[in-house]
C-alpha cells in the first residue's frame, strides 16, 4: 500500500522571490556607465580625426606602396644583413631582459608591502618603479643614444631601464599575492628579513617570476625592434633606412624576417611556460 507521501509531488513547489532593493540602483548605474563610455568614444573619434572615408579615398596610395613592396627582395645582399640585424635585435631583447633582473628583484622586494623593511622604503621603491615604467623605452633610447651614440648598446640600456620598472612592479605584486604563511613561520623561527625573503617569499613565487620574465622577454624583443627605428641598432634601423630610401621590397624582406623571429620567440616562451606550469 502506498500513501501519497511515498511518491514525489506532481507539481514543484514555488515561492515568491523577495524584491531586491539594489536592483533599480544597479540598472541606473549600468545605464550611466554606458552613457559615459559612449561620450568618451565620441570625444576620442573627434580627437583622433577618425575618418574611415579618407582610408577608402586613399586606397590607391596604399596599393602603389604594396605593389612596390612585392615581391620582397630575397637576394643575399639584402637577406644577409637582415638576418644579422635581426639577431642583434634578439640580443638587445635578451640583455635588456636579463640584466634588469637584479634591479627588478631588489626593487620588487623593497616595493612589496609584505617584504619591505619600512613604509618609507616601500614608497621610495614604488616611486622609482613608477618612474621607470612611466617613461617609455623609446624615450630612454633617445637619451642613451646621446650618451653612448647610435647602436644596439643604447637599446640595451633603454630596455634595462623600462623593463626594471615593469617587471619590478609585476613581481612586487605577485609577492604580495602569495600565501604569507611560510614567511610568518620563518619569522617566528627567528629568521631575519633577508632570510625570510630568500627562503620563503622568493621560492614561493618562482613560477610567477619565470612566467613574467618570459613574457617580458617576448615583449622586449618586439620593443627592441621599435628602438631600432630611433637609431638604437638592430633590424629596426634597417627597416627605417629602407623606408627612407623608398626600397619597399627590402623593407618587406626585413619585415618577413622579423615576423619569423617573433613567432619563434613567442612559441619558445609559450613552450617553456607550459613546461613550468606542468
Amino acid at each position, binding site marked *: 500500500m502506498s500513501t501519497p507521501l511515498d511518491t514525489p509531488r506532481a507539481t514543484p513547489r514555488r515561492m515568491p522571490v523577495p524584491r531586491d532593493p539594489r536592483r533599480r540602483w544597479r540598472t541606473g548605474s549600468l545605464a550611466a556607465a554606458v552613457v559615459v563610455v559612449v561620450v568618451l568614444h565620441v570625444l576620442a573619434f573627434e580627437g583622433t580625426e577618425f575618418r574611415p572615408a579618407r582610408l577608402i579615398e586613399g586606397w590607391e596610395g596604399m596599393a602603389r606602396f604594396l605593389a612596390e613592396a612585392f615581391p620582397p627582395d630575397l637576394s643575399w645582399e639584402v637577406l644577409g644583413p637582415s638576418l644579422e640585424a635581426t639577431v642583434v635585435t634578439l640580443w638587445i631583447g635578451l640583455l635588456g631582459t636579463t640584466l634588469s633582473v637584479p634591479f627588478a628583484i631588489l626593487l620588487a622586494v623593497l616595493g612589496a608591502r609584505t617584504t619591505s623593511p619600512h613604509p618609507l622604503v616601500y614608497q621610495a621603491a614604488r616611486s622609482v618603479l613608477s618612474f621607470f615604467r612611466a617613461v617609455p623605452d623609446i624615450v630612454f633610447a633617445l637619451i642613451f643614444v646621446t650618451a653612448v651614440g647610435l647602436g644596439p648598446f643604447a637599446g640595451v640600456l633603454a630596455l634595462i631601464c623600462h623593463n626594471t620598472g615593469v617587471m619590478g612592479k609585476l613581481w612586487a605584486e605577485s609577492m604580495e599575492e602569495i600565501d604569507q*604563511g*611560510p614567511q610568518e613561520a*620563518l619569522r*617566528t*623561527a627567528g629568521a631575519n628579513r633577508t*632570510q625570510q625573503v630568500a627562503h620563503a617569499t622568493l621560492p*614561493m613565487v618562482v613560477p610567477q617570476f619565470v612566467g613574467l620574465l618570459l613574457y617580458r622577454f617576448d615583449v622586449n624583443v618586439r620593443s627592441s625592434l621599435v628602438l631600432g627605428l630611433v637609431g638604437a641598432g638592430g633590424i629596426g634601423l634597417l627597416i627605417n633606412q629602407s623606408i627612407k630610401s623608398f626600397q619597399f621590397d627590402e623593407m618587406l624582406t626585413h619585415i618577413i624576417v622579423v615576423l619569423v623571429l617573433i613567432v619563434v620567440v613567442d612559441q619558445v616562451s609559450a613552450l617553456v611556460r607550459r613546461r613550468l606550469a606542468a
Partner: protein
Amino acid sequence: MSSLTMAAPILQTTALSVRGLTKRYGGRTVLSGVDFDVRYGELVAFLGANGSGKSTTLKCVMGLAEPDDGGITLDGAALGPLRGGQLQAARRQAAMIFQKIHLVPRRSALDNVCAGALNRIPTSRSLIPALFPREIREEAMACLDRVGLADRALDKVSQLSGGQQQRVAVARALCQRATIVLADEPVSALDPHAAERVMALLHDLAHSENLAVAAVLHQPDLARRHADRAIGLLGGRMVFDTPTRDLTGAQLDELYQPDRMDLT
C-alpha cells in the same frame, strides 16, 4: 648539554608561564586574564569553541600579536622588559606549528627543516640552501629522522602527504632547537590516522625529549589520549585547567554549548 641531564622528566620546571593575559581587538576583549603554565616534559591541550581565543593566546606568546596586558615568561625569562635582540633571543626558545603547515612546497623536506636553523646561520651563508653549513644539514637530517622521515629528506614537500608535511614542520621546530613547541590546530587538516601519528609524535617529544608542548585541538578525544593536561577557554576566559584524566563531559559541554554569547 642541559637536554642530557634533563632527559628524564622527573623534576618538571616551568617552560612557559602566562599571567593575566589580556587582548583587545578594536575595543572587543578577546582574552581576559588568562593564566596558565606549561612545564617541560608535558603536552598541554587547549580546548575551546571557535573564536574562544586559543590562537590569539599562542600568537601573543609568539609575538605575532601584541598583548594589551599581562606577563609572559619563556624558559625563565620574563618577556615584558626585553627589547630588540634580547626579546628575539628569548622567543627563539619557542617554535610554532601551524594548521596550514606553512612549509615551502617547492623545496625539499631537508631544505625546509634547515630553515628552522636560519637564526644560527650568518645571512651571507644562508642566501640559498646550497650554502647551508654541513653541520646544519646533518642536524636537520637527524631532526627528520626523529619524526620518521629521513628517507623522504630530498623529496619536495609538495610530494608529501599532509601528515608527513606536518611532521616536517615539527622537524623544523626541532632544528630550531626550540624547547617550547606551540601548535595551533596541528591536526585539524589531517585524516584520523595521520592526526594520531602527529599527536603521538608531539606526546613523545614532550615525554622523551622533555620539551614543553602546547597544542590547540578541536577533538577532545585526541586531547584525552595524548595530552597530560587540558586548558579550556570560553569567550576569552579560562574555564578549566585539569589533568586530562579528570576531564569530565560536563566541562566539555560547557565549552561547546551552543548558546554562548559570541555566537555570530
